[in-house]
């Protein structure tokens, strides 16, 4: 039998080992993607449209589509998630209705995104006749994102102490005023962090989009901002392949001669964007918290 001290050392040692291994695998993965991808990056690559058969295509349209879809999906899902989280955490009593809602959210958040994508295809694309479009994609992403975001906002509300709620109410604020004027402002840094992190997940999502936003990226005319024109970047009814879908597509059926290079470059862009989201989330969350709590 080992004595407790040795036991402790062995346990800590193996935990460090496991943690180190995870970090190592992650670094290797990131390193590989960045080392093979970053050399492909250029202003041309980031802005030029893709080419189907020839060398020298870029990912400009896909990159733009990814951001546009992300913003639309967030515009739809954030207000709903915020409302749902406020209802669930601040108002709902513990009864079978809320238990059902919570269970539904749990299940939704663990649905594989392919399933969400296929549902989006059957419902939005076919049934509602929205076609392969930004809008179908944004709705599918909303389904994907809503449960995650609701939970993360609910967690943010949970971090605000009950004494704050009592403080607001005891001042003669109504329940709603207490929530909107005391609790939400106090929770903003943590809600924002949650939103940005979920943006990262949405940004990298491919499976939910393949059959909803589609796999083609018609050329865009960046001088035409009338959303009713088919080549306008703002048109929500056009098909819109995103960066993540592009990577998947090139690797499964890309026939341009520089497919490998484009795929590596796109992966690097995707990874860099997601890293950026994560760092931005930390930085902004901390900054905002400091702003709110000091000076």
């Amino acid at each position, binding site marked *: 039998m080992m004595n407790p001290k040795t036991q402790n050392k062995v346990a800590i040692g193996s935990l460090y080992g496991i943690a180190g291994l995870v970090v190592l695998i992650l670094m290797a993965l990131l390193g590989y993607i960045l080392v093979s991808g970053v050399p492909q990056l250029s202003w041309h690559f980031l802005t030029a449209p893709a080419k189907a058969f020839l060398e020298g295509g870029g990912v400009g349209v896909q990159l733009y589509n990814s951001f546009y879809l992300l913003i639309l999906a967030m515009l739809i899902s954030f207000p709903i998630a915020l409302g749902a989280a406020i209802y669930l955490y601040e108002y709902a*009593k*513990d009864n079978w209705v809320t238990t059902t809602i919570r269970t539904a959210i749990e299940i939704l958040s663990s649905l594989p995104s392919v399933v969400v994508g296929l549902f989006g295809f059957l419902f939005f694309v076919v049934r509602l006749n929205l076609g392969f479009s930004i809008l179908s994609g944004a709705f599918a992403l909303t389904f994907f994102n809503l449960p995650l975001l609701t939970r993360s906002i609910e967690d943010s509300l949970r971090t605000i*102490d009950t*004494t*704050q*709620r*009592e*403080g*607001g*109410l*005891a*001042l*003669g*604020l*109504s329940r709603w*005023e207490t929530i909107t*004027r*005391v609790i939400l*402002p*106090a929770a903003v840094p943590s809600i924002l962090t949650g939103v940005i992190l979920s943006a990262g997940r949405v940004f990298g999502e491919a499976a939910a989009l393949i059959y909803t936003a589609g796999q083609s990226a018609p050329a865009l005319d960046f001088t035409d901002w009338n959303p009713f024109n088919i080549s306008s970047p703002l048109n929500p009814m056009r098909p819109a392949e995103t960066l993540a879908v592009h990577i998947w597509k090139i690797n499964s059926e890309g026939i341009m001669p520089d497919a490998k290079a484009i795929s590596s470059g796109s992966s690097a862009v995707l990874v860099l964007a997601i890293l950026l989201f994560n760092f931005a989330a930390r930085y902004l969350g901390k900054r905002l918290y400091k702003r*709110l*709590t*000091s*000076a």
Partner: protein
Amino acid sequence: MSKEILTTQDLHLYYGDKEALKGINLNFDAKGITALIGPSGCGKSTYLRTLNRMNDLIPNVTITGTIKFKGENLYAPSADTVQIRKEIGMVFQQPNPFPFSIYDNVIYGLRIAGEKDKEKLDAVVEKSLRQAAVWDEVKDHLHESALALSGGQQQRVCIARVLAVSPEIILLDEPTSALDPVSSSQIETTLLNLRHDYTIITVTHNLQQASRIADRTAFFMNGELVEVDQTKNIFMNPAEKQTEDYISGRFG
């Protein structure tokens, strides 16, 4: 007695089917400090929180009996809890300033009520902080976060925050038990300054504190009011044996 501002008659409160208050009859005259004392779990906080309807927030609470504030039934169906809590303010055991500036903390209630006049708000901030005896310490950092203050300063800012909405009654639940002795005595001074203008009801575990600041003291035990009287009578010459035992430290 016509100057009674708050009256409770035969007040029972149940958490589920556990009876926490067993028929309390207790009235408060306008102005002055009343201390509520008694062993842990005897229902002091529960009683205090019925007075501004903070118990409404807890599920499964049943309340019977009558509480009247200036003759109006606090629990009447038409009673407006928001209005009640403006007139009957509350300070908690743990200082709970909002994570905003000192200035914003103090004027929060007023600003949400729609007051925009900058001069008026400035005046209220200064007056309330002075009344709470914390003005000199914070006047140069009004726009810094209230969370950067010491616990005692935070608690006095919380008192100022309540004063700013001009309540008639201030309820305090062990306002000094989370504070060091120096901060505690500053809070006591603050309360003594306020007793001429407000009706103050404070829960305390500190018997010396009760004897130092309270005009009247009420002794609770097991959900019942054992005795209420002038503070010096309670401490020097209690009518009930239980009170005497508690005061002399035989239990509790």
